[in-house]
Structures are given as C-alpha cells and as structure tokens.
C-alpha cells in the first residue's frame, strides 16, 4: 500500500507539489503570525521590565500608553521625592512629606508612531535624562545625552539603543550612527548618542521636546519610582496612594501580566489566524484528494474487486493525504525560518519560533489534511465496484 501511495504522489508531481505548498501556506500563516505576535510582545515586555524602578505611577484611568500620552503632571515626580512645600500664597495647596524609601523618580512621556518602512510601530520615549539614568540601567556607549533646543524650530536631538542602530541603517549592513538623522514627529532628529541596554522604547528624546510637539507642557505619561530596596516597594506604593490618591500605581513586575490582559483582542486575532490556517489546509487537501479519487475511480474499483475493504480504501486515501500534509508542514517550517530571518533583516519586527507554535502548526497542517481527505476517502470507499471498474 505504501508503494501505491508513493507511486500515486509521483505520478502527479505538479498536483502533489501544489498540495504541499497549500499546506505549507497554512503552516507559515500560523508560525509567522504567532511568532510575530509573541516576538514583539516578548521584546516589548523585556524592555518594559528592564528598569531599576520598581514602581510606575500613572494618571487615573487606563494605564495604556495609547489612552493618555501626556496627562500626568511631571510635578508628581518632584513631589514624591521631595514632598510638597507650598508657598505662603498657595493656601489651597496641601503640604505633603516626601514619600519614604524613594531614591529616584523620573517622568517619562511615551508616543507611538509608525515605523519608517510602514510595517509595525515604534515607541518614542520623552525623558529627563539625569533622572531616567537613576531609575534604569541605561548608559551611553557612544555620543552624549540629548538636549532640548528650547525652540519650536530645532535642532532636535535623540538617542537610540544598539538594536535600533544595527537594524535601521539606510541599506543592508549599514547602521544608524551618531550624526545620522531619524524621523520623529515628522521631523528629522539628529542621533547624538547610542545607549545600552534596551529599555522601554528604542528612541529617546528630551521630554521637553515631546511636550512641545504634543502640547502637554509640564506633563508626562507616567513616572518611574525607584525605592531604596526592592522589598520596600509595597510600602512605598501604600504611601504614594495615601498621599496622592486616585491615581494608578503599578509594580513594574506586574506589568507583563497587565499587558497580557490588555491584548485580549490580539489573542482573538491569533485564534482567527489559526482557524484560517486549518481551513486552508483542509480545503487544499480536500480538493486535491477529491480530484484524485475522480481520476482514480477505476483503480478504486480494482481495489474493491481485489477485496479491499472500505477501511482499507479510506486508509489509502488518508495516508496519501497525511503524507502530503507532512511534506507541507516540513516545507512550511523551512519557509518560515527563511521568512523569519528575511523579515527580521529588513524590518524591526521580531519573530519568535517557539516550539509550542511549531507543534501547533504541525498538528494543524496534518490534522487539516486528514480531515480534508475524509469526505473524498469515504466517497471512494462507497463507490459501486462495477461502475468504478468500468469508469473511463
């Protein structure tokens, strides 16, 4: 039977190849889409977690960047660190002590813009450089810190991380260097420094520059707060909530889980992609096997005349479908790996080829093929042997 299956596949090489490619497409869809989603989220979560500050202070409402770019007063950073000492004439301002256990507080603005290539997006951080370095491990490896010109006409300065420098050059192999210009807010910013490690967004500009472009003077998106000791974070959060109630305060270590909750639509999207992949694999194999049994009606009649049971005939068709699907899965994996490195070399997208997704794609590819062949297989098994053997 195995010789018959192999011989059948070789007899129609173009149809076999097209069926394999069809299954491979479903595999690629699952592997690359899932890998892209996971890769980008993992990278983003890593950079979000790569800070020394244990606490993140948000304004009331959603902590999502897209919801409130610059809506938090930067004065909170100073208030948390040094307390509030109102002037005599500010009788309506309540004095507040410094929050105990805090060693640094840094306001950060975040803005999301499309990448230059139009694929994906990038986060721009507006930072106060000195305080930012106190709350993260950021260190310049080339150049200097960015400065705000104080005017609307520039010049505009930015610093970038090593990954951005290596992956966004004007052509293959080239890098973005100190002195290059990059587009931010629709204007050309001069790269004045390159930093490591990757923290939050890959591009940082002075917070004052961002405030000028976004019209949020004296505002930021959130404030990072670093404590004397990590184990003090809980108490510090309690104190901040007591002194400045009504705001969102999140521990940095809880951010990945919170981001996961916020990307439920992404999970739904991935489920849809998987469903599409199943449909593609199933339909491709269904059509291939259906035309196969039409073409081989006489052969099926011969099998029946030899005493082949319905189960035997179903197994012949299903084995052939499973073999095509297996080839499609392997071919899909190969193309996915090539696609991953090709896409990552030409864009800032990150694609994770996680074994779980590879296994899921393999199961989808083979299962879809087996399911797709069921109807043609049972149709073949129930053919009238005399009509089948007489079929021209």
């Amino acid at each position, binding site marked *: *039977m195995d*010789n*018959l299956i192999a*011989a*059948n596949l*070789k*007899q129609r090489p173009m149809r076999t190849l097209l069926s394999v490619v069809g299954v491979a497409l479903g595999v690629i869809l699952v592997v690359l889409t899932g890998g892209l989603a996971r890769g980008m989220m993992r990278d983003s979560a890593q950079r979000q977690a790569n800070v020394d500050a244990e606490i993140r202070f948000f304004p009331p409402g959603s902590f999502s960047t897209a919801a409130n770019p610059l809506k938090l007063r930067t004065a909170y950073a100073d208030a948390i660190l040094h307390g509030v000492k109102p002037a005599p004439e500010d009788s309506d301002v309540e004095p507040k002590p410094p929050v105990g256990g805090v060693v640094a507080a840094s306001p950060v603005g975040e803005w999301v813009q499309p990448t230059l290539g139009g694929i994906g997006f990038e986060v721009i951080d507006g930072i106060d450089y000195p305080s930012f370095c106190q709350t993260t491990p950021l260190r310049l490896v080339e150049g200097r810190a960015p400065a705000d010109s104080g005017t609307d006409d520039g010049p505009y300065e930015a610093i970038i991380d090593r990954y951005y420098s290596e992956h966004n050059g004007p052509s293959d192999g080239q890098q973005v260097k100190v002195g290059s210009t990059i587009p931010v807010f629709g204007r050309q910013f001069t790269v004045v420094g390159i930093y490591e490690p990757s923290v939050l967004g890959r591009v940082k500009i002075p917070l004052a520059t961002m405030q000028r472009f976004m019209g949020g003077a004296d505002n930021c998106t959130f404030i990072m707060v670093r404590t004397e000791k990590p184990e003090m974070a809980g108490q510090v959060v309690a104190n901040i909530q007591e002194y400045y109630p009504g705001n969102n305060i999140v521990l940095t270590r809880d951010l990945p889980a919170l981001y996961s909750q916020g990307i439920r639509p992404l999970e739904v999207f991935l489920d849809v992609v998987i469903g599409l992949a199943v449909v593609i694999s199933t339909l491709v194999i269904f059509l291939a096997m259906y035309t196969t049994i039409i073409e081989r009606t*006489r*052969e099926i*009649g*011969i*099998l*029946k*005349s*030899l*005493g*082949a*049971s*319905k189960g*035997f005939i179903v*197994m012949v068709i299903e084995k052939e479908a499973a073999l095509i699907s297996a080839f499609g899965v392997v071919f899909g994996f190969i193309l996915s790996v090539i696609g991953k490195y090709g896409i990552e070399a030409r864009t800032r997208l990150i694609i994770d080829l996680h074994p779980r997704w590879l296994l899921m794609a393999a199961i989808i590819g083979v299962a879809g093929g087996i399911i797709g062949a069921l109807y043609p297989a049972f149709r073949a098994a129930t053919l009238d*042997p*005399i009509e089948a*053997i007489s079929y021209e």
Partner: protein
Amino acid sequence: MNNVLETIDLKMVYHVGKVDVQALRGLNVKVATGEYVAIMGPSGCGKSTFLHVVGGMLKPTSGRVIIDGEDITEMGDAERTEVRRRKIGFVFQRFNLFPTLTAEGNLKLAERIYSNGRGGNVDRRHEALRLLGLEDKMHHKPLELSGGEQQRVAIARAIVNRPAILLADEPTGNLDSENSKVVLDMIRGLNEEFGQTIVMITHNPEAAARADRVIEMRDGHVVGTTEVV
C-alpha cells in the same frame, strides 16, 4: 466432490428508469472443486452479471449464491467483500493492473489487501510470476509489458493468495490470437497442475473449448451444458 460455486434459482433484475431488465432468470449452476468451466453466450445474455453476482460485487434480486460453503446471498457489502478477498480471484478483459506499480508491486498489493495491510510473501509472489512465465518481468511496469504479459500478471495477481475460485471475464478479449493462446494455455495449466477451480466467461468458442465444461446462456437462462472431450 464438493462444489466451490453453487447458485440456486439465481435472479437479477436491473431497474433502469421505469423499465425492469431481467439479466438473470433463475440460474442453477454448480462448479465442483478443480473444475474448469466456461460460460458462453451472446452479448447481453447475462454472463458478466452472473460473474459479478457470484464474485460478490452485486447482490442478486433473489436466489442463492454459495461460495466454498459460504452463502453470500444475504451478506452485506462488507461481508461479501471479505469473502471476495479470501476466496475469489478476478481476471478482467482489460487487465486492470495498477499502472504505477511493477508486476511484483501489483501482486504485493493484492497480498496486502488479503492480509489487511500486514504484508506478503515474497517467495509466493515470485512463484506465481514464475508459473506465468514472468520471472524476468517482475520489475517492469504494465506500460513496459505486452498485452499478453499484462494479462499474465493479472492472472498471477488473481492466484497469488490461492483463492478457492478464479473468475475470468473475457481474459483474451483484448489480446491477439498468439497472446490469447499463451494466456489460455497458462489458465489451463493452473487448472491441470494445481487444481485451480476456474469459471471463465467468453464469447469465443475456441477459448471455451479449453474448459472441462461449457455452459451456454441466452437471455439470462442456461440453455445448455456441454462436457468438453
């Protein structure tokens, strides 16, 4: 002597639209173990229908069919298929070999069907091909064989599992006279040397003359039986 094949008042009616066609009208046929029987008759007399019914590929309208002691009349399709697998070998006018498999591959497939996918016996395959004079053709595909050779491969495939009865439907119908003679000699040899029970339908009197007995059919009836001397 035991009968390998027995039909009792066998009837087959085809419903073609609003018309009923009586292909078999009460056949009573017995074929003993080791007997070589030819069934002759003009086109449309019911020869092929008879072969399909006794081969388990068609359920009769009424009557009984007993193959090697098993009454297949009331069996379902799966059971008749199983009897066909175990006890019946078929040879067709159009050879009906798998074009993508070699001569040996065709026999191997028949063996795997017989054993429900478990495997075959290479010695038995080679012996069957040798009996039919095909030992140097076993790795050839059907397109690389002459008509006579293809039909001999088909015969080898039909007997490789040592069926109780070999049913041949016009085995020389697509062959020239020279190849027909070779094939008929081979069939005769299977019967004489190995006692293979054979029922062959033909419209060729010369082919029928090779058998032990000739049954003549007309309009779904048996109209005569002749012992061949």
